């Protein structure tokens, strides 16, 4: 790992000092043959949903937000499909946008027409014009759109898949676009002539109470904010909101709270916007005993809360996590290969619960916000962490690490199951369970334990369809519609 500098300003990474020492003093020698995961010929298939989906997931779930998608029919069909499956049951407006419209050069008219259609829905508070690959290439820009249509605010969310490389990172684009509209930085000049961000609008009780609270930035299972809020209340704080939220008003609070807890590592744009507005940012998430302990203390430090209370609450939470792990320890080798951007958090939890996690891969890019978890994991036996991964890298990891369980994308999980290895689709199975603090531990660990115990079924099913095992596992290159 390259040397990292502690960032300026208000970023606090709970265990940054410790992990930096670990990683620089004890560099992990790579046990793998050189070039194992970087053979360019065989890294053909990046793993992510269409990046734009991340933005649609965030935007279509907000009450009162209507989307107008500007794109070609294939793109529109696919994104509408996944939105209707994974995000919301909202009807989606779009202009017809093909050669005819491109030749006529009326991309802006097309976008505006769709915004007008979207504005007809009663109760609409915000219209998000979504500019996708084809519209971006045709040159749709913010200046071409009116600030309002029929009295309703319009924002342009630019998510061409060719420029944003993963769907988690496109969630950041959407949230950031809303934050820039509703929680822009306000500056004030202090008595000694220094310009600094104004983080609250006035000194009143409501405002002061808000400044003791935290907004969690990261899409989590609905039970997680409840347990986080309970712990924060013991510190004398509380959770003001969780973003992405279904309530547009929650975004307007972001500039006014005491701290933002960015629990997922891919919200760089939103974090930058909020930091510029003067809000302290805490990265990392309360996952597993150690991280939970550090996170609670970091929150207390950022909000200048009573340190001794924080120490007590943090230690209690850590001990509760340890007790649960003691009761249900994990045993086995697990590959964590999702594309949701929060894979490092899950991997930490599994490692602390006793599992061996030699290989982790994700769709997002490596950043300052992945550094702490990466260092922590590499200090505890993780051999490879691959960012912006490809299917080919993940499949090679199956050969290299011979896992007992794979938490993967659908193609990887299918490949693992074809080899008789227990596997599940990371996105569907892990995102529907709580994860944070002691309350989130048990369910996730139980899920993994159960999966590991199901191994004989996976082998039986493989043998039934594929016959007795050969010396080399046969590649799963079959036409499954046959």
């Amino acid at each position, binding site marked *: 790992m390259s040397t990292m500098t502690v960032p300026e300003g208000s970023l606090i990474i709970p265990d940054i000092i410790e992990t930096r020492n670990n990683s620089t003093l004890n560099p992990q020698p790579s046990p793998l043959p050189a070039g194992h995961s970087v053979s360019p010929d065989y890294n053909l298939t990046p793993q992510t949903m269409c990046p734009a989906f991340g933005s649609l997931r965030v935007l279509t779930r907000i009450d009162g937000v209507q989307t107008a998608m500007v794109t070609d029919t294939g793109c529109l069909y*696919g*994104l509408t499909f996944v939105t209707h499956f994974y995000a919301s049951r909202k009807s989606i407006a779009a202009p017809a946008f093909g*050669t005819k419209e*491109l030749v006529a050069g009326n991309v802006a008219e097309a976008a*505006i027409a769709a915004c007008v259609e979207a504005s007809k829905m009663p109760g609409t508070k915000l219209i998000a014009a979504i500019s996708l690959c084809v519209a971006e290439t045709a040159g749709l820009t913010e200046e071409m759109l*009116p600030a309002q*249509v029929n009295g309703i605010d319009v924002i342009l969310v630019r998510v*061409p898949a060719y420029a944003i490389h993963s769907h988690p990172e496109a969630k950041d684009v959407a949230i950031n676009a809303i934050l820039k509209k509703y929680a822009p930085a306000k500056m004030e000049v202090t008595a000694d002539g220094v310009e600094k961000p104004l983080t609250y609008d006035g000194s009143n009780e409501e405002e002061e109470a808000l400044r003791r609270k935290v907004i969690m930035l990261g899409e989590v299972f609905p039970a997680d904010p409840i347990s986080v809020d309970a712990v924060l209340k013991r510190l004398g704080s509380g959770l003001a909101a969780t973003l992405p939220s279904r309530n547009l008003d929650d975004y307007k609070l972001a500039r006014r709270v005491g701290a933002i807890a960015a629990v997922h590592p891919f919200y760089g744009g939103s974090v930058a916007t909020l930091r510029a507005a003067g809000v302290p940012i805490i990265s990392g998430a309360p996952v597993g005993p150690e991280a939970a302990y550090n996170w609670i203390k970091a929150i207390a430090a950022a909000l200048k809360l009573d340190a001794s209370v924080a120490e007590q609450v943090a230690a209690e939470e850590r001990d509760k996590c340890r007790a649960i792990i003691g009761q249900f320890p994990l045993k086995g080798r697990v590959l964590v290969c999702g594309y949701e951007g929060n894979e490092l958090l899950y991997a930490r939890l599994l490692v602390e619960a006793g599992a061996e996690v030699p290989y982790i891969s994700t769709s997002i890019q490596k950043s300052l916000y992945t550094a702490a978890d990466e260092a922590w994991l590499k200090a505890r036996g993780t051999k490879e962490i691959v960012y912006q991964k490809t299917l080919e890298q993940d499949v090679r990891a199956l050969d290299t690490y011979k896992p007992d369980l794979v938490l993967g994308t659908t*193609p990887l999980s299918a490949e693992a199951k074809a080899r008789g290895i227990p596997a599940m689709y990371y996105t569907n199975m892990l995102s529907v369970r709580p994860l944070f603090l002691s309350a989130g531990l048990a369910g996730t660990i139980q899920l993994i334990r159960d999966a590991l115990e199901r191994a004989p079924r996976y082998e039986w099913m493989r043998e039934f369809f594929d016959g007795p095992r050969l010396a080399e596992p046969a590649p799963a290159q079959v036409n499954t519609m*046959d």
Partner: protein
Amino acid sequence: MTDLNDLPNPVPAGGKKHAPIELIRDLESTSGYWAAVWTMCTMPDVHLICDAPIGCFNLVATAVPDYTDAIPHIHNITPSVMREQEVTMLGTAGAVRKAVEALRRLHPDKTIIVVSTAESEMISSDHRDWLSKMDPPVPFFWSQSLEGDEWEGRDRALVWLWRNFGIENARLKIEKPQDGLSQFSILNSQFVNVIGPTYGCFNSPSDLHEVKRLIEGAGGKVNLVYPIEATLKDTPRLAESAVNVVMYREFGEALAKELGKPYLFAPIGIRETTEFIQKLGDLLGTREQAEAFIAHEKKTTLAPLWDLWRGPQGDWFATTEFAVVAGRTYTEGLVRLLADELGMKLQFASGRPRQPGEMNNIQIREALHKKQPAFMFGSLNEKIYLTEAQAKATHFIPAAFPGAVVRRSLGTPFMGYSGVVYIVQEMVNRYYDLVFNFLPFDNVAAAGQLREVTNPLTAASRLVWSEAARAQLDRQLEGIPWISRISASRELRAQVEVYAVKHNLREVTPEVVERALAG
């Protein structure tokens, strides 16, 4: 605030007014690129390279077929992975070449085909020339994704496959090959091809299973099912059959025409199925066997329809409304079966690709918000519109993509005699549910054991609205602009139902509506 009275047709800066922008809601048909992938990737000896950003690849190869065709992913497709630098500066030739070279090493036994996408067409990435100069040449398919829809896309892809991989190698060319396509001799006068299912064809495994059964019943032998059960190397074998059966009106006919043999469309409904078997018998010279098959089918496969028709269930048909939004084959087939043959009332039908005069999704949405049929055959879009209208009394029956629905079992056909019985059975069972939900029962939950309070609206869900009462409510709503009608209808309805529950009424009649809304 911008004045937008002129929208959606604003006058652009140049002063010349553009053609009106056509608006879409919840697009129902995808593009030529998707059609090409879903057609060509069914054949295991093909490997496609799509000249695409990662999103176009993931949606067509994984995200959607996961939930429609119920396959984990389409394995024989690789993206060129267009990034910003390819779009703005480099072009995609380098990325495509890299993929071709790697895949040739990985799959030396496969035919690699490069397919364009909307975005590659947008930046004019036509690779035909240089790909044709590779050794061996790499075929390039321009998918026309900025123009056509998935139906013409499949049509074009099938014809292109035949012209590039079939016609030259067709084994059975006779004396005058230069005279073209109608000159192939017949290898076997009993052979029948099925031109039809690709990935992304709703319910095709069941329908194909039934069509094969009908072909064999009529005296034919199924030769090639193209492309879903074929390899690319099989393509010349399309010339071997005496007759082609085209599964769908939406696509496939163009290939059948090029093959130059008689062709029939796969049938839906009692009469069309009977005619199909008879005509196939005539074409194959097996009319007698075909008639015997029909007679036997009436006593076996189709017997449940005769029983249901004569039984109490048959009486329901004439009093029940339905609507269809689906592919052209299903739309026309369901209208034939349900309206023409069984006598059900058709509220509306709209096929895909749409013909002039058929409703688009904006109009369908409006129609469903105003009035809901008892049965809605459609896609997820219609299901969403029914949800928006809180239409709990409508039975939604999946009949088209888009929408997540597994249809891989062989037991859910819409086509043929089996299809007639399956559709009618589905509807009758939903009637039974309706009857069940109408009957009184002991409410243990509401009796205080499980829940403390009886919610009047829960009780209201057991109320039955007479047609006249519904009409009365509709009249009340007529004055309200359609877009506000959903919420207005919900409110008025709730008002009526709370009144009815309070007065211990089980049925909502026009009088009840009047009294409830007056009070």
